[in-house]
């Protein structure tokens, strides 16, 4: 795809300019583009898998590449002698050998691009990919040796030079590896002391990995090998040393850079393909090359596999071999190398360039595109992206120990024996040297356990998010929202959540316009799934990752801001809407109620939970005063809502029940979710230590997005005018519809609704849960015995809107209902998490903000 794009681009450039402005400069490629890709690959290389298959990888990389290079070179030369290749291609044996060397190496970039998409099983992937990485050393050496031979002239080459070639191969590869390992140790050692300067941790990672590349390049060693091994070696220690935030940064930055570099490379390839100045087509050469590389690749793979299978525990079967031969993709490395050729010495350079481009295109486009169907057709075992469970982790470790022991008993100095030795060495010396004290004391198993817990939590959320995104597509009104594009900016990881947030806003915004039943239903569906993302926020935020004082301070701050903004809105509303006493009354009532509900918050000195009670009212109200509060609390709100009596909300109740059913596992005594169970028993939080660090950043993104989208939505002045408190008598009371006001100026464009939400959702984690529950119960009693049927995370706002949607355009509420409502109605309370690290955004523009769910 990218190449196609590059082709098009190149065509455009060609039309516009007649001359190529942008070309793939080898310097650019080798200095910047390649390192990013290789660095990413090396750093995230599954080390265990790599070393488990090291033998196979080395064989394929060294023997296979040599075989390919020589055979291709000789056969091309033979073809030339036979006259298949045009006379104009002035090339001798050395030239063809050179060409064979550069064309024979499987390219890591192309392999990554293609195989990551295909998802073949891990072993297959690591073998092909590892080969592509390691064979760089071979290619580079061969290339350099041949270059020097060509320059000297084939007739002047003496026997000693061949041995020098072999020696230089050893030096280049081993030297490169050593440089990489030295930098890995250095990197691990440096990150051990960066505790005070977390911010530069990623920088060190990037710099040192890159330095490994440059250093190796400087000494003419294999830079790719160096970088790969630096990544592999450092990964374990660095990951353990640096903070979670840095880890995330490193991960995404590397991945992003690699993708960018990959894209650029392919685009450049496409562009240079249309550059006629470099083309010199020779059908014989092109077709011969294509045939030869394919045939020899296949032959080489089969031959080596046959040998290897005699030594492998799990033999590579025929299907694997087919995929491996077919996956011999050539790519940008070959192209860059061929462009680097010196036209003075290699007369046929133009032909070689053209052929290389064709080969790259053919392998990447044709083979790369067809490999997926092929893999499907052959039923190659796919890799499952499933993460290991704790059981598997434990038992596999046990297996390792068992195997090592058995090898010892059987007196074999086998692979497990050496790995065991290495692990001992690692544990006794390396880790002590390279890891922080605190980290060193932690057990890997425990970390794995934590990771799994976090993953569980996240997966639950992601499920919700996924459903949600899919549901979003079904909402016709969404597409036109201005805020929609913004949604796509979020990182992949949080995309669902981000969109979820925005989605909800949109829904609310749209509701009044289209009160279609289907939409209502969809919304119910959405609401059912929405609680999950928020719960994640909560669970992560809830853990004490901040020092206690800070929390208290924040808590206080949040509260003060809440009150302040509330007062302001209160004033402003009164100012503006003197005629609407009723709503004012309600407002007052709600305020006073808020005070009541705020109290517990102040009193309670939870470590991790600092709920802020925010009244969530009709949307106008929200816009007025709950929004500022929400801004402050980037955190997530958990709300439990009352269940209304079915007859008033016929539509909403079933959905609510459904939702309740869904969410009940989260609410109930924590036997349903595995991670909860364990956490109950153990005071130290298991889930979120790390997660806390991850989420804030991303969450803030999502939040900012939603805010900005809100601004874009609700910025029209009319809205702020329209804003007036709307309190809906809760249905159970007056039997009234959710009351809504349609102010004269507004054309029903504003969602009107009663916030049915009440209470707080208590997230069932740890002991805090009970406290919260108690508190809720107290509140309940205060309210006058509303049965809190269930606390449901996040149900509040969605539910509200759904309630809104159900009734036809709302008649003004019966006079009595509003006071009643105010009296009865409990503020919908939203507990806001105050754990957000970012300072709350100024709440001044509350009027311009639309309703938000957060």
């Amino acid at each position, binding site marked *: 795809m990218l190449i196609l794009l590059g082709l098009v681009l190149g065509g455009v450039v060609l039309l516009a300019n007649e001359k190529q402005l942008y070309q793939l400069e080898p310097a650019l490629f080798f200095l910047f583009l390649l390192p990013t890709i290789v660095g990413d690959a090396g750093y995230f290389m599954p080390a265990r898998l790599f070393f488990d298959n090291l033998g196979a990888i080395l064989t394929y990389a060294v023997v296979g590449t040599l075989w390919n290079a020589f055979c291709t070179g000789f056969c091309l030369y033979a073809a030339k002698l036979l006259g298949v290749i045009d006379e104009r291609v002035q090339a001798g044996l050395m030239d063809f050998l050179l060409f064979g060397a550069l064309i024979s190496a499987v390219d890591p970039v192309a392999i990554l691009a293609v195989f990551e998409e295909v998802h073949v099983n891990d072993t297959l992937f690591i073998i092909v990919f590892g080969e592509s990485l390691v064979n760089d050393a071979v290619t580079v050496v061969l290339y350099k040796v041949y270059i020097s031979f060509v320059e000297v002239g084939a007739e002047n080459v003496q026997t000693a030079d061949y041995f020098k070639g072999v020696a230089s191969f050893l030096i280049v590869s081993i030297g490169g590896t050593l440089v990489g390992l030295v930098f890995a140790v250095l990197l691990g050692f440096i990150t051990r002391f960066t505790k005070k300067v977390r911010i530069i941790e990623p920088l060190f990672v990037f710099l040192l990995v890159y330095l490994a590349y440059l250093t190796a390049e400087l000494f003419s060693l294999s830079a790719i090998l160096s970088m790969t091994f630096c990544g592999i070696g450092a990964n374990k220690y660095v990951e353990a040393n640096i903070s979670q935030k840095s880890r995330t940064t490193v991960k995404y930055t590397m991945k992003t850079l690699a993708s960018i570099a990959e894209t650029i490379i392919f685009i450049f390839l496409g562009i240079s393909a249309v550059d006629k100045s470099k083309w010199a087509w020779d059908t014989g050469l092109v077709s011969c090359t294509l045939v030869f590389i394919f045939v020899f690749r296949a032959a080489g793979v089969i031959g080596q596999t046959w040998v290897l299978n005699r030594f492998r525990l799990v033999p590579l079967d025929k299907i694997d071999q087919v995929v491996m031969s077919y996956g011999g993709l050539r790519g940008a490395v070959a192209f860059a190398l061929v462009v680097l050729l010196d036209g003075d010495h290699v007369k046929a350079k133009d032909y070689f360039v053209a052929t290389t481009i064709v080969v790259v295109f053919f392998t990447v486009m044709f083979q790369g595109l067809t490999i997926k169907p092929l893999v499907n057709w052959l039923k190659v075992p796919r890799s499952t992206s499933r993460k290991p469970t*704790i*059981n598997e982790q*434990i038992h596999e470790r046990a297996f390792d*120990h068992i*195997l090592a022991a058995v090898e010892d*008993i059987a*007196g074999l100095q086998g692979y497990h024996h050496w790995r065991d030795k290495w692990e001992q060495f690692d544990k006794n010396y390396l880790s002590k040297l390279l890891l922080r004290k605190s980290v060193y004391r932690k*057990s890997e198993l425990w970390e794995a356990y934590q990771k799994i817990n976090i993953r569980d939590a996240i997966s639950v959320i992601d499920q919700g998010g996924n459903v949600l995104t899919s549901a979003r597509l079904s909402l016709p009104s969404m597409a036109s929202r201005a805020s929609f594009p913004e949604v796509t900016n979020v990182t992949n990881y949080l995309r669902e959540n981000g969109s979820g947030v925005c989605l909800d806003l949109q829904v609310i915004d749209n509701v009044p316009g289209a009160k279609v039943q289907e939409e209502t239903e969809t919304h119910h569906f959405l609401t059912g799934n929405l609680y999950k993302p928020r719960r994640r926020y909560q669970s992560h935020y809830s853990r004490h990752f901040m020092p206690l004082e800070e929390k208290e301070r924040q808590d206080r701050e949040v509260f003060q801001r809440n009150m302040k903004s509330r007062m302001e809105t209160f004033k402003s509303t009164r100012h503006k809407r003197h005629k609407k006493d009723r709503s004012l009354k309600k407002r007052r009532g709600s305020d006073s109620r808020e005070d009541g509900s705020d109290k517990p918050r102040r009193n309670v000195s939870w470590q991790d939970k600092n709920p802020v009670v925010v009244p969530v009212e009709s949307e106008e109200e929200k816009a007025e005063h709950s929004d500022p509060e929400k801004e402050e609390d980037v955190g997530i709100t958990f709300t439990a809502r009352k269940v209304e009596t079915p007859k008033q909300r016929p539509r909403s109740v079933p959905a609510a029940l459904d939702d309740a059913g869904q969410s009940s596992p989260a609410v109930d005594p924590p036997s349903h979710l595995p991670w909860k169970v364990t956490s109950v*028993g153990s005071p130290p939080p298991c889930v979120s230590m790390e997660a806390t660090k991850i989420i804030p950043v991303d969450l803030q993104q999502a939040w900012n997005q939603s805010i900005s989208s809100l601004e874009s939505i609700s910025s029209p002045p009319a809205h702020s005018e329209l804003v007036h408190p709307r309190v809906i008598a809760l249905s159970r009371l007056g039997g009234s519809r959710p009351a809504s006001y349609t102010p004269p100026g507004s054309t029903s464009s504003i969602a009107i609704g009663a916030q049915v939400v009440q209470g707080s959702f208590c997230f069932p984690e740890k002991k805090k849960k009970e406290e919260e529950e108690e508190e809720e119960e107290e509140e309940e009693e205060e309210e006058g015995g509303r049965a809190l049927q269930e606390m449901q995370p996040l149900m509040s706002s969605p539910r509200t809107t759904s309630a809104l949607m159900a009734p036809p355009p709302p008649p003004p509420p019966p006079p009595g209902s509003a006071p009643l409502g105010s009296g009865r109605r409990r503020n919908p309370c939203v507990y806001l998490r105050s754990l957000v690290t970012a300072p709350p955004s100024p709440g001044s523009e509350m009027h311009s903000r639309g309703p938000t769910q957060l």
Partner: protein
Amino acid sequence: MGSRASTLLREEEIEEIKKETGFSHSQITRLYSRFTSLDKGENGTLSREDFQRIPELAINPLGDRIINAFFPEAEDQVNFRGFMRTLAHFRPIEDNSKNVAVSEPLNSRTNKLLFAFRLYDLDRDDKISRDELLQVLRMMVGVNISDEQLGSIADRTIQEADTNGDNSISFSEFIKVLEKVDVEQKMSIRFLH
């Protein structure tokens, strides 16, 4: 290598072991020489002390458990047959197993798993209880981890595997938990020919 060893080993014995375990002739003689070199008492059987003398095994956290696995119940000597039978669990699985007659070869997936299972299951009640799991975990993680943490790991592990709610892992549950793991590869070693 072991000319002395192979002379001590009678041909018919080799044949029987071959049939039972699937080891090749050369593998058997090779392992027999290993066996005799371990056998300091030179009485044709290995005792626990013989195993414990292996230096690498001393630092293996699960070493004791694995040594135990070599000994049949209530015995503290193991002869070469038993030795080979245990080792046979770790032979890689061949696709074209020639001895189809043997219904369940020792190196089958189930038997490999059973071997691992027995490492946990000290009291042989075919269940890994929480305590048993904790013991093994403690062996594997060392002292750097607190009891509560370990306990929560164990709880979590059991809960993940436990399907019938008896707070322990039965063998069938054990198999089920590991069904996605490439046990054939991860519980096999390559015996030299």
